[in-house]
C-alpha cells in the first residue's frame, strides 16, 4: 500500500512541494499505477526483459572532435551567470 509518507518521500526526491489534497490525489494515483503493474506478474519468468522497443544495437559515434557551442551561445538562456560560470545553488557538504 502506498502511504502518505511514500508520496512525500518521492515528492522530496523530485524536489516538488505538494498540498495536502495533492498528496491524497497522488496516493490514489500511485496505487492504481502499481496495481496496473501487477499484470506483469502473469508473465512467465523465463521471458527476456525488454530494455528498449527500438530494434537497434551498437549505434556508435567515432571519436572525432566536433563543433562546440560558443560560451555566449551556451549561456545565452541562463538567468544566473558569473564570469563564464553558471550559477547554481550551494550544495551543503
Amino acid at each position, binding site marked *: 500500500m502506498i502511504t502518505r509518507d511514500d508520496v512525500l518521500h518521492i515528492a522530496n*526526491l523530485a*524536489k516538488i512541494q505538494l498540498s495536502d489534497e495533492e498528496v491524497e490525489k497522488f496516493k490514489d494515483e500511485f496505487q492504481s499505477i502499481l496495481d496496473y503493474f501487477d499484470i506483469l506478474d502473469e508473465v512467465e519468468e523465463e521471458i527476456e526483459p525488454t*530494455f*528498449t522497443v*527500438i530494434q*537497434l*544495437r*551498437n*549505434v*556508435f*559515434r*567515432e*571519436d*572525432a*572532435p*566536433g*563543433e*562546440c*557551442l*560558443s*560560451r555566449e551561445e*551556451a*549561456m545565452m538562456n541562463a538567468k*544566473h551567470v*558569473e*564570469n*563564464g*560560470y*553558471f*550559477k*547554481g*545553488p*550551494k*550544495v*551543503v*557538504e
Partner: protein
Amino acid sequence: MDDVIIGLEVHVQLNRLKTKLFCSCPINYHDSEPNTHVCPVCLGMPGAMPVINKEAVKAAIKIALALNAEVQPFTVFDRKNYFYPDLPKGFQISQYDRPLALGGYVTIETEDGEKKIALKRIHMEEDPGKLSYKGSITLAKYSLIDYNRSGVPLLEIVTEPVMSSPKEARLFLNKLRIILEYLEVFDGNLEGAMRVDANISLKGGGRVEIKNISSFKGVERALSYEITRQRNLLRRGRVVLRETRHFDEVNNITVSLRSKEEEQDYRYFPEPDLVPIHTSELVDEVKDLLPEMPEEKRQRFIQQYEIGDNFAKVLVLDPKMADYFEEVALQLDAKLAASWIVDVLRGELNYRGWDFRVGWEKLRPEEMIRLLKYFVEEKITEKGVVEVIRTKLDEGGDIDAIIQSKGLFAIPKTEIERLCREAIEKNPKAVEDYKAGKKQAANYLVGYVMKVTRGRADPAETAKIIREMLSN
C-alpha cells in the same frame, strides 16, 4: 588489521580519448576557460540526443580484459536520477543491473606476499561538471558551475570488500594506475583523473562510505583517520553509524554528510535514448590490441636480459621507464643499464618530481647510452656520471660539453701511474718518512698527483697505486 574491511569504488577518466562519451566535444579542457567545451548534449538541453563514443567502449573493454574481468555479452545504460547542480539533465547516464563487466582481480604485493584483490563490477558512466565556490565553501552563497568536464567518459571500478588496511588500498590503487597507464587509455597526471569512494567497516560497526577522495595519499589518510575514529567509538561502547562522510583534505579528517540517498532513491531505469550494446565483436577487436602487461614484461625482462627480479620489478612500474631500459639495454650490458636507470636516474627524476615521460626528454636514451659508454671505457668515474646526469636534468646541454666544462673526463690509469712515479721521484723525503713508518706521508704524495691533475684523479685509486709502489 584483521578486523578492518575496506572496499573501493574507483572512478577513472578515459582521458586519452579525444571526445566525450555521448557528444563530440573535445575533452582537452584542462587549461581552458569554463564552459567552452560544451554543446546541447553535455549541457542537458531539451531534445539533445546522446550517441556513444565507440573508442570509449573499446577502451573500457580493454581495461576490463586487462583486469581479468568478464565482459558481458550484452550491456545497457541507465538513468541515475538525482538533483545536483553539476548534473545538467537531472540524471546521470550510468549503468545499473547490466554493467559492462563483472568480476576480475588485481594482484598486489603485500609484505605477506601476493594478494588478489577481487573486483565486483566495472561500468561506464558520464562524468558530471565541476562545482567551485568563490572564496571559502562555507561563506559562499552559491556554487559556480563549469560543464567542460560534463560527459567525459568515466569508468567505475568496484572492488569487493577485501582489503584489510589503508596500505593495501594504496597498493591496489598504485597497481591499478600502472595497468591503466600501460593500456594507454589513461593519463594519471591530469587533475581529477582518478577519484575514489572508499567503504570501510570494523568488526561490530556499521559501514561508512567516504566520498570523492581525489588523491592516493588522501585515500590512505582518510581510511587511517576512519579506523581511529571508529575504533574510539567502539572502545567507548558507542555504535558506528552507517553513513556517508566527506574527506577534508586540508585538515585530514572525515566529516559526516547530512543526507544520503538510498539506492532505490536513484530510481534507475533504462536510458531510452541509447540502444543496447552487444560486445562480442568489440571484444575480438580489442583483444588484438592488448599490450604486454606489467607482469608479463617483468618475466620477459628477467629471461631476455638476465637481470634480477629486484630490477625487473621496478622497471615495469612505469611503461616509459621499461621502454627507456630496453633502449639502453640494446646497446650496453643490460645489468649495468638496469642498475643506472633504477638506482640513479629514477631517483634523480623522483627528486625533481618528474616521471620518465619528462625524463625521456631531459636525458634521451641515446645520450644515456653515450654517457654510460664513457663509464664502461673508464673515461669517466661513477661520481662523474652522476654529476653529468644531474647537470643534464637541471640545465640541459650536450653530454660531451658538460663533461668537458666540468673537467670530468677521467685521466687514464697509465697516466695516473706515471704521475705517481713522478711524485715518488720528486719527493724523496716523503718516501723516506713513509718507509720509516709515517704512513700519513703517503697523503703528501697523493696530494701532489691531485695538484698536478687539478683534482681529476680519483684520490682513493691514486692512494692505492702509491701504497703499492712504495711497498715494493
